[in-house]
């Protein structure tokens, strides 16, 4: 397993999944445009070695896990592993937790800037898209925070924008774990909330920060379990939070409970810039520490960015676990990459109206990040979008097969189809498309017979045809 970003870069280089750019590239849109196009071409991760206006030893590593190949490398799997194999590997490892180890110091303390020693503009935060609200320093990050009442430490991957030399604005959604602790405790007591923005930790730690994980669950222990070894943590300089010791850059901040700044708009993981602007949080930076030759890690967000793989994967397994806990007949869940974490395909042992409604209720009761759910029978491989589309097109009744739940105060405000008014109220809806046969239909008399090789021929005929296949003149 990888101990830091540098190990991971080496592994990607060895597997052919890294491209190093020696030519000077400008942080103002050029880096973002190159990275975006590479992402859309399913290209390699990028390591920009020379950034205009910045020191030659400050570099940027972009789109760490935006392809399934790179996710496979992260988990030590063969790069060509199938989606099903990657899902299975994560599912196998995620139940094991290994608590982190606290160490005295680490490479992230190579350079310590306190007080007046630092200027956020010394870090080459890019302007990723034309028309964004600002330069985003936090895209591939880990925001570390703690609930003082329970001591629960949360790691989350949230966006943070450079505001001036000593301030950032951010948008951990109000319904996010950080947002919840901030509002429930710090805002209520009018106290600043210490957080640490970790940039360039080991890849699994970032993976867990972006994971859909339950309240009270510690991502640091999840990362240890997934890695098979504890994450080493070191104490911050200006607060008591612990951060991965091998990280490239640590920005220590306090979220101000009584101040605001403009945050956004920003081209986000849904693949759009939705106009979510001016409803975030303002942070005062208290220290910046970093390694020698720090590497800024960046997710060039947009269509098919890093979220489309890792948030989708962990979201799918979290959905599966949640449905299992509620006793629902779930088999497999896929959050397809192209659905930008807005759609889930849920395979069930059996469906029908009651199951559909219970699944919809279960998945929208606290926060509702999904706006579309496709429910499919066991004969549909949830990872095969061709099969899923076939089931949706043919089995979802246009009048009776669509169930909708409406909600306010917990919608995903980044969902592009919502109006500005709906965003302001966090108002939205989730539709479940029931692509399963009604439970009351008789299999002998009413359920249509699927006209595929595997389902519409006797087993004996199938076996004969397969045995004789090459004799018909086919090569494969």
């Amino acid at each position, binding site marked *: 397993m990888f101990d830091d970003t540098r190990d991971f870069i080496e592994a990607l280089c060895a597997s052919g999944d890294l491209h190093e750019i020696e030519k000077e590239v400008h942080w*103002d849109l050029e880096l973002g445009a190159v990275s975006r196009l590479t992402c859309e071409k399913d290209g390699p991760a990028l390591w920009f070695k020379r950034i205009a206006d910045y020191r030659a030893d400050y570099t940027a590593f972009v789109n760490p896990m935006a392809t399934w190949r790179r996710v496979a490398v992260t988990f030590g799997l063969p790069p060509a592993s199938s989606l099903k194999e990657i899902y299975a590997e994560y599912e196998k490892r995620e139940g094991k937790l290994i608590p982190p180890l606290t160490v005295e110091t680490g490479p992230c303390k190579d350079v310590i800037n306190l007080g007046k020693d630092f200027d956020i503009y010394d870090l080459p935060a890019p302007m990723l898209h034309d028309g964004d609200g600002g330069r985003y320093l936090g895209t591939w990050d880990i925001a570390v925070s703690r609930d003082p009442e329970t001591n629960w430490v949360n790691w989350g991957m949230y966006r943070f924008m450079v505001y001036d030399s000593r301030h950032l604005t951010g948008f951990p959604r109000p319904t996010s774990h950080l947002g919840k602790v901030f509002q429930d405790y710090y805002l209520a007591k009018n106290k600043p909330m210490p957080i640490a923005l970790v940039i360039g930790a080991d890849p699994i730690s970032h993976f867990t920060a972006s994971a859909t994980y339950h309240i009270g669950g510690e991502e640091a222990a999840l990362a240890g379990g997934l890695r098979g070894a504890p994450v080493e943590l070191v104490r911050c300089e200006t607060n008591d939070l612990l951060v991965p010791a091998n990280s490239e850059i640590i920005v220590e901040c306090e979220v101000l409970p009584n101040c*605001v*700044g403009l945050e956004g708009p920003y081209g986000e993981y849904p693949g759009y810039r939705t106009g979510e602007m001016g409803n975030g949080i303002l942070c005062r930076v208290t220290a910046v520490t970093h390694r020698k030759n720090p590497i800024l890690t960046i997710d060039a967000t947009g269509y098919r960015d890093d979220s489309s793989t890792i948030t989708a994967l962990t979201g799918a397994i979290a959905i599966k676990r949640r449905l299992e806990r509620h006793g629902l007949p779930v088999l497999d869940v896929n959050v397809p990459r192209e659905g930008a974490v807005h759609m889930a395909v849920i395979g069930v042992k059996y469906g029908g109206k009651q199951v559909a409604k219970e699944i919809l209720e279960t998945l929208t009761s606290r926060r509702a990040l999904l706006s579309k759910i496709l429910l499919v029978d066991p004969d549909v491989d949830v990872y095969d979008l061709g099969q899923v589309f076939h089931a949706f097109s043919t089995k979802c009744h246009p009048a009776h097969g669509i169930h909708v739940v409406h909600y306010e105060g917990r919608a995903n405000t980044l969902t592009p189809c919502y109006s500005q008014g709906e965003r302001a109220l966090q108002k939205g809806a989730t539709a479940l498309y029931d692509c399963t046969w009604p439970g009351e239909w008789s299999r002998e008399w009413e359920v249509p017979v699927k006209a595929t090789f595997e389902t519409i021929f006797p087993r004996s005929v199938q076996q004969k045809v397969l045995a004789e296949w090459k004799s018909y003149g086919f090569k494969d």
Partner: protein
Amino acid sequence: MASKTEKQVWETFVRRPGDLKEGEEVPMVLRDLTSGKKKYQMRHVVAVVSRKPEDMASMDQLQVRTVVGILLPETWGVKIVRELPIELPGRPYHDFYDALRKAAVSGS
């Protein structure tokens, strides 16, 4: 900063058409488009804006973007009247523009 012969260029974001009102002092967020490491640095100000050519000649230049980040084709003139604090009093997760308006009224 721009040289004395060049106009300083700023950019702002507005929520809806008509948010910029000519001839009166309006609170706004400006970002500095001067090239270099600190490009896009933010400021909170009270300013006067104008689209009249005779006013614009003596004002800084202002570009305006919409809530989804689209740059509007019209350029404005802007003159900063006074600064507002960068740590602008307001309630997190609530409308930043309301906080700007309140700060301008209270004279923060």
